[in-house]
């Protein structure tokens, strides 16, 4: 009879550490995951950050209140409008600037277009992560129309810098309304392709269903926001809870799901695209007349104090905490980015999953690394 110590209780292989990234196609950036494996089962995941740290928070302390929003569109580059909007809003809160209704309507239109564009890119890229190539092309076909609209009105295709304190930088282009209407028409016409290609596909359902379950309690305790938390049943839409820039006047639903697995996250994002299209439908014919920018002083000086604003980006709650000492530049800025908190839940839910499922979990988290690693 052998000693009890020499007989392993469960069959397990030698511990194996695998580095996913920093250069890996499915991390969508320079994120490194230190994965500890037992056979093919994950026992531990450790995200290693710092590969794209640009010290944006420190950089903003040097820039004036007008300038610092220009850096933030490089953080979450897929929802740069919302980042700029949060920066503009924190200055407006500090200086008590009232935004004209026309500027508010333009802001909402731009933000919802960005949300659709961001979710389209997520849809195509997650298809690529899971082995489907053609969704990427169909998603980019629609996304290209949105970037064309942005190019005409805002002047750039990705890093917009369009929202400024007091409103927006320039008025909308004469062709804006017609182009957005055409986009919404085509988007609704082509949305069934998305469902037929991926949503109802048994291969995708098998990859996503029951994988990476995040319970409601965990989603709250890890500070998850956005579609990740809403798929677990946490109601956290900033547009509903703390309405800003006229979202309270609009009719839209907060998409919630209760299952908390990857498929639920997928469904929440697909429905959010429809809701964004619904919001644009309501606004596009009713853009109020008036100024697109409130009259502000040339040099902005925020009064002494601290200010916090939050917006709902395509990934969740983006908050800015600004401490001002009464000078032209912010004394300290802290960005609360949705990607960072969402990533912190990844090591928790990936334990016990297979190595192949890690890519599915990563894809459905929709991480943007420059946002995590400011």
């Amino acid at each position: 009879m052998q000693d009890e110590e020499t007989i392993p209780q469960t069959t397990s292989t030698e511990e194996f550490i695998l580095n996913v990234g920093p250069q890996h196609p499915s991390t969508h950036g320079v994120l490194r995951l230190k994965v500890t494996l037992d056979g093919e089962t994950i026992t531990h995941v450790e995200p290693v950050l710092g590969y794209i740290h640009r010290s944006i928070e420190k950089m903003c302390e040097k820039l004036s209140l007008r300038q610092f929003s220009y850096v933030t569109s490089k953080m979450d580059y897929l929802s740069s409008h919302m980042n700029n909007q949060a920066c503009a809003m924190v200055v407006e809160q500090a200086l008590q600037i009232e935004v004209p209704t026309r500027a508010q309507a333009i802001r909402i239109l731009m933000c919802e277009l960005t949300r659709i564009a961001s979710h389209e890119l997520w849809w195509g890229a997650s298809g690529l992560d899971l082995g489907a190539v053609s969704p990427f092309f169909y998603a980019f076909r629609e996304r290209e129309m949105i970037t064309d609209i942005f190019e005409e009105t805002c002047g750039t295709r990705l890093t917009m810098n369009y929202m400024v304190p007091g409103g927006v930088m320039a008025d909308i282009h004469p062709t804006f309304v017609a182009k957005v209407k055409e986009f919404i028409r085509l988007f609704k016409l082509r949305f069934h392709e998305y469902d037929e290609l991926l949503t109802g596909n048994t291969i995708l359902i098998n990859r996503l269903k029951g994988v990476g379950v995040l319970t409601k309690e965990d989603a709250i305790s890890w500070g998850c926001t956005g579609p990740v938390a809403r798929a677990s049943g946490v109601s956290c839409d900033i547009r509903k809870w703390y309405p800003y820039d006229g979202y309270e006047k609009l009719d839209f639903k907060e998409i919630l799901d209760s299952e908390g697995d990857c498929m639920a996250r997928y469904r929440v994002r697909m429905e959010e695209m429809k809701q964004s299209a619904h919001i644009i439908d309501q606004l596009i014919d009713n853009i109020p007349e008036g100024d697109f920018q409130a009259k502000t002083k040339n040099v902005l000086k925020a009064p002494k104090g601290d200010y916090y604003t939050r917006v709902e980006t395509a990934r969740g709650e983006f908050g800015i905490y600004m401490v001002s000492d009464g000078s032209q530049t912010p004394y300290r800025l802290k960005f609360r980015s949705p990607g960072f908190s969402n990533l912190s839940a990844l090591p928790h839910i990936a334990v016990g999953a297979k190595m192949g499922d890690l890519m599915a979990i990563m894809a459905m988290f929709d991480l943007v690394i420059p946002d995590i690693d400011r």
Partner: protein
Amino acid sequence: MQPLTNRSKPVQTREMTFLEKLYLPAIWTGMVITLKHFFMRKATVRYPEVKREFSATFRGKHVLKRDDQGAERCTACGLCAVACPAEAITMVAAERKPGEEKLYKEEKYAAVYDINMLRCIFCGFCEEACPKEAIFLTPETIPSMYERSDFIYHKDRLVESMDKRIDISKRQEKKLAVNN
């Protein structure tokens, strides 16, 4: 939730049948969609032959405008350099000598005006800050080069040439300037 079209399928929650476990029907439905796109209008352009033009409001390479008589508008006030978040603009001011009225519009002009295109983030703030309507961003991209020093654009590449005037009238007009 009201579906946008009646063609979307609800997600199945039941156990999969044998036919579905084969994945063949799922592959087939995907293939049908991709095959349909063979006969649809192409979404792409044939790039090297057909070029996709930027819109007139695109923020690209800077230009220092001349006025109608061909005199440089820039007075080297330095407001664009102050407004620049990336600190890409540097300039040296000089005083206009008698006889140079045709070259420079006002008494002060920029003897050196450099923009570091590696630093520039093309936010368009210089254009907004300029009181003399001298600097504009044009829908042109910065070409790639071999040396880092080639990206520092001096006045020879920034000021528009007399025979090739750049039309910036298609840019969106700013009805409301930032004022006190």
